[in-house]
């Protein structure tokens, strides 16, 4: 049974599709990169998988899991970094599924949180406000929260964007560790070389799937050009369509 199955899935906003008629499956334990130009629907697909966004049509099967049981690492720009909350509390939010609205955090939970913070190398930063973190530290903190969530399926939205090489290498080790633990990991990425070196499977997305399968076969120059072209072609048509609809 695959961890995720998409059945003619269309996701979007205000009836405008951002992911169009996606079919396919993510095998349990797979390590999948989702690649595509900006606006290709990567984040939208992830919001669909994690239940943040309801499908416009079609469906997602999650191997009997609830959407809420899937760990989700949102893009950093989606987070209000001026909010007065510290690293520890942010990481502790990963316990939500077991703690809910009122559950207390016991000694065992504290160990889990501390261990996660140590694993990403943020020990000593527990009481720092998130607004004082660098981009790399911010991403490390979000990875710690995923660690605390301890989910079988993990979705990472641009986890390596705008961080330095050392941080990327550290976090990539974590991804490899999850893969070796037979967890299913899906990540949106822009760095093609990094994908080729580390991700066995790739979905090339440009609103519609361009190619999906073994990474070397998917990431050909031809397919990448096609993805760019499809995305642009679609944009032009979308603007043309929107005008009579508004009037």
């Amino acid at each position: 049974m695959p961890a995720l199955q998409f059945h003619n899935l269309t996701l979007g906003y205000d009836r405008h599709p951002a992911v169009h008629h996606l079919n396919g499956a993510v095998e349990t334990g797979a390590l999948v990169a989702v690649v595509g130009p900006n606006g290709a629907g990567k984040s939208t697909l992830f919001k669909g998988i994690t239940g943040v966004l309801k499908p416009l049509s079609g469906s997602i099967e999650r191997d009997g899991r609830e959407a809420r049981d899937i760990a989700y690492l949102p893009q950093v720009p989606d987070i209000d970094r001026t909010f007065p909350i510290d690293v520890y509390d942010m990481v502790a939010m990963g316990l939500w599924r077991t703690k809910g609205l009122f559950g207390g955090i016991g000694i065992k939970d504290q160990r889990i949180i501390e261990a996660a913070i140590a694993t990403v190398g943020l020990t000593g930063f527990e009481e720092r406000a998130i607004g004082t973190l660098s981009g790399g530290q911010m991403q490390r903190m979000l990875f710690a929260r995923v660690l605390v969530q301890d989910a079988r399926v993990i979705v990472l939205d641009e986890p390596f964007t705008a961080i330095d090489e050392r941080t990327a290498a550290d976090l990539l080790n974590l991804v490899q560790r999850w893969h070796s633990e037979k967890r299913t990991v899906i990540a949106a990425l822009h760095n093609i070389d990094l994908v080729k070196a580390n991700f066995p499977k790739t979905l090339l997305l440009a609103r519609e799937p361009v190619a999906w399968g073994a990474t070397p076969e998917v990431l050909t120059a031809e397919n990448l050009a096609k993805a760019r072209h499809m995305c642009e072609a679609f944009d032009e048509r979308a603007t043309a369509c929107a005008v009579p609809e508004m009037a």
Partner: protein
Amino acid sequence: MRRAGNGLEAMLYQFLLEPFGEASVRHSMAAILALVLSAGPIGVFLMLRRMSLVGDAMAHAILPGVAIGFLAAGLNVFAMTLGGLVAGLLIALLAGAVSRATKLQEDASLAVFLLVSLALGVVIVTANGIDIEGLMTFLFGETAAKMSASKLLVVAGTATLSLIALALIYRPLVLGCVDPGFLRSISRSDGMAHLTFMTLLVLNLINAFHTLGTLLGVGIIIIPAAISRFWTRDISTMIVLAIASGLVSGWAGLLFAFHAKIPSGPAVTLVAGVLYAGSVLFGRIGGIVWQVFPGRHLEA
């Protein structure tokens, strides 16, 4: 010397303690205590959600409801609470519905509702002609800080309810502010939390109306939160500081109102304004003085 000392003591007694010999002034003080306990955190969340002006708008928007209650039953605290609650929830839901159904942003549609609603409120109040003293109390709170026991009961009851409800939605409220996408990925409570929060805002506004009048009541919700932001980067401390500065404003403001024989609304708001000005100047987080002399202080 001793006589001078006694004179000073007597003066301090007269100024600080004697006012609270009157039951109505004690009621006012107790009401302020209850009010700031629940309104402090509400104000902090309003600020963190960048909704301080929405709070202001809501305050005007619920005026017609309170006015109808006021006209139906005079300065009857229950009628005014009920009227305000109905009007507030109606407007919050309508503004939300209009913004979802159309392309208009929620704050824009709220701004429209506030203006229409305020106009309606003024028409209702003036068309039915009320005495000037009643109007003053309605707009600015009790003159010389005198409050009835039944009003205190309503204020304290509402505040208690509000605090309990806030505790229930605290986690989704925090996470909904800082990382809304993640919250929606793990819980379906964000819609419920937002709606509950808007309801609590309306309840606290009405509470503030009772205590400090309809025109300025919102000040005790918003200003203490703004003050707290200048002193801490931690949300729990922020809430405590908002409550504390609200309490100081309320206490000093009531004394001011009592001695100057003015309504409590402007008195309390002015004191809060002074505290705010002090925080803008000397606040540890982003205060002007610390910005003007940063290097020297940090080098040590």
